[in-house]
């Protein structure tokens, strides 16, 4: 039976902030744009972003993009590409004002300018003093952004395909991307989207970890598709953790808890942070506290019957203070831990929050791969933006508020690049004869399965393995063991079984397809992490500690380079970090201290 073919100038996969910012740019230029999304656009994970958008508007205090640039390079532990970081920080005010003009309800100062709040890691005068740089819409910044962009897209005639899951990239004989295959959940049918370009904005893969703040939809679909199509994944060993996610739920407890005096305790009731950070104690930086918590658990001092969590104690603050200053914490305790935090400690664990790596791109959002000696050869017709991409502005550690900024700047830049390179006047490249064969074979295999494990059982084992071996506290031995374990789980994932073989809205089948994507993201993370023999940013390995030659374990001579992981052959390659910005001087290497 012939498959339906939908023909568009551009197909955007993912309808979060990055996807919709890009589709808007294209639709406004009169291009025919399709946006595919597993869920209704305003229910994309961008909705969960609360903090704000980093931009040096200087509305509250002296600020400029040079300071923002410096903070971002330093935050990235010098793994971020300085050309991309300069581009992002220079564009930041522009994208914020554009959003304002589209109707985004930013918080205001009395004089009508956009209010900006302070955020960790943002400074003026190159680290001299904190500066308020986050532009926010109360604690609903992501929500307001999604609504603004969705309304503008509808007005500009973007076509949305909601409850469609993209399956695989279609590449022609020259390796150019000419479309994607996608599954319509309502019918269970596979279609081809034939396009002059395909843009991935599929978000992160935070669900590869057992403890994750990410929504259930974040299964790394773009990463899986790219990896299966022979595209490498960059710097996947770098994941940002948050220290106080509720055990077995992932829901975040605000850093304000510790600011108000909450104490982290081990099973003996000990305030263990006094041992690790005698001065700052529980208020030490996020990544440091996370690693200490994990160490306590790994050394047998975790709480609970399985010794697998830490107790966050607020009881000494008193009910009145808790209800006045931390009402959301009281609510979360009740709803997700069955605990009254006024009376007893709440179980917490370091929880995965953000993926720094992804599909390698340049500052136009074009996907780039090593070819013929050039580490950044463009893959024609293929773009990636937002958390699924690695441009790389976050390097080894992301600065707060730079995630929403990344979506806006590079979503817009990708759109502009396509317009400037005259996409409208280009012809579609022909589809290969076997365009959908690979996807159809994957689905047929699932439909014909009569033995094997259920997708969720395999996915749960994968999450546990990733949590244990690629969590916040890493040792070389544990990571090496993790590689073996994850590759063994990948074997099991290759022969999943479905109980339900129906076509229409078969969620088991969709989950099985998601597991295939999770597997690629997990393998990339585990293998890349085990190979990087240093500590840098979020990748901190106990074996590579602070020495005079390698402060904080960072080994710039050998490891100041980007990792590239290929699914085929499970192999690694590396490429240099771009240390030269576009117009200014390089931020020279230094020890990352605060």
């Amino acid at each position, binding site marked *: 039976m012939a498959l339906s073919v939908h023909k568009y100038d551009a197909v955007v996969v993912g309808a979060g902030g990055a996807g919709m910012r890009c589709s808007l740019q294209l639709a406004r230029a009169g291009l025919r744009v399709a946006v595919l999304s*597993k*869920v209704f656009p*305003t*229910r*994309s*994970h*961008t*909705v*969960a972003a609360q903090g704000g958008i980093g931009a040096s508007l200087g509305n509250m205090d002296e600020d400029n993009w040079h300071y923002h640039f410096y903070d971002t390079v330093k935050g990235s532990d010098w793994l971020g590409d300085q050309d991309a970081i300069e581009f992002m920080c220079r564009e930041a005010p522009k994208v914020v004002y554009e959003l304002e003009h589209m109707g985004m309800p930013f918080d205001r100062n009395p004089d009508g300018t956009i209010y900006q709040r302070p955020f960790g890691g943002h400074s003026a005068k190159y680290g001299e003093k904190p500066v308020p740089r986050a532009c926010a819409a109360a604690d*609903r910044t992501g*929500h307001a952004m999604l*609504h603004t962009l969705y309304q503008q897209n509808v007005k500009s005639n973007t076509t949305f395909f909601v*409850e469609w899951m993209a399956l695989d990239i279609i590449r022609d004989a020259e390796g150019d991307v000419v479309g994607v295959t996608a599954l319509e*959940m309502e019918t269970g049918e596979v279609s081809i989207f034939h396009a002059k370009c395909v843009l991935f904005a599929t978000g992160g893969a935070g669900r590869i970890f057992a403890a*994750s*703040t*990410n*929504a*259930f*939809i974040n299964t790394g679909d773009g990463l899986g598709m790219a990896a299966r199509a022979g595209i490498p994944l960059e710097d996947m060993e770098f994941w940002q953790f948050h220290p106080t996610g509720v055990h077995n*739920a*992932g*829901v975040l407890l605000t850093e304000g808890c510790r600011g108000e005096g909450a104490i982290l305790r081990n099973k003996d009731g000990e305030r263990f942070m006094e041992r690790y950070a005698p001065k700052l104690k529980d208020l030490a930086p996020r990544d440091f506290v996370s690693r200490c918590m994990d160490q306590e658990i790994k050394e047998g001092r975790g709480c609970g019957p399985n010794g697998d969590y830490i107790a966050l104690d607020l009881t000494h603050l008193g009910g009145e203070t808790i209800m006045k200053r931390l009402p959301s914490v009281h*609510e979360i305790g*009740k*709803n*997700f831990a*069955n605990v009254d935090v006024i009376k007893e400690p709440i179980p917490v664990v370091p929880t995965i929050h953000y993926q720094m790596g992804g599909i390698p791109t340049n500052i136009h959002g074009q996907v780039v791969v090593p070819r013929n000696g050039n580490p950044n050869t463009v893959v024609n017709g293929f773009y990636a933006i937002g958390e699924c991409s690695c441009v790389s502005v976050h390097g080894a550690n992301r600065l707060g508020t730079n995630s929403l900024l990344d979506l806006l700047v590079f979503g817009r830049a990708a759109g502009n690049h396509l317009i400037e390179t005259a996409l409208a006047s280009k012809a579609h490249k022909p589809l290969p004869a076997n365009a959908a064969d690979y996807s159809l074979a994957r689905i047929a295999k699932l439909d014909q399965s009569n033995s094997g494990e259920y997708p969720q059982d395999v996915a749960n084992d994968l999450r546990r393995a990733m949590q244990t071996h690629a969590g916040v506290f890493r040792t070389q031995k544990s990571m090496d063991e993790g590689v073996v374990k994850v590759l063994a789980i990948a074997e099991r994932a290759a022969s999943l079984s479905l109980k*339900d073989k*129906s076509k*229409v*809205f*078969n*969620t088991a089948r*969709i989950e099985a397809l998601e597991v295939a994507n999770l597997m690629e993201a997990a393998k990339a993370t585990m293998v890349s992490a085990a190979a990087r023999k240093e500590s840098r940013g979020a990748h901190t390995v106990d074996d590579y500690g602070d020495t005079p030659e390698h402060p904080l374990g960072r080994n710039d001579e050998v490891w100041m380079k980007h990792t590239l992981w290929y699914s085929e052959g499970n192999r690694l390659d590396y490429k240099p970090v771009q240390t030269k910005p576009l117009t200014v001087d390089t931020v020279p290497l230094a020890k990352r201290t605060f």
Partner: protein
Amino acid sequence: MLTDLEFSKLRWRCRRGFLENDIILTRLLDRRGANFTAEEHEQLLALISLDDNDLWEIIAGRSDDFPQGCNGMVETLRQTRVNH
């Protein structure tokens, strides 16, 4: 009792943009399976058509700004929230 198709659709549409809603809605579906009356089903569909932030405000009990006739399901969701 929902049909298999109705239940599958419901389960997928309970996939949300943020984790809090994912957890409470999944908790409800895991407990009840397909055992929803037609009226409950209708109410739940109306509620999950709301934006995530608005839905969470309702589930958390901070807002009563929900579609008319959904009182029963709102109460069920609030109970699901507090009863682990």
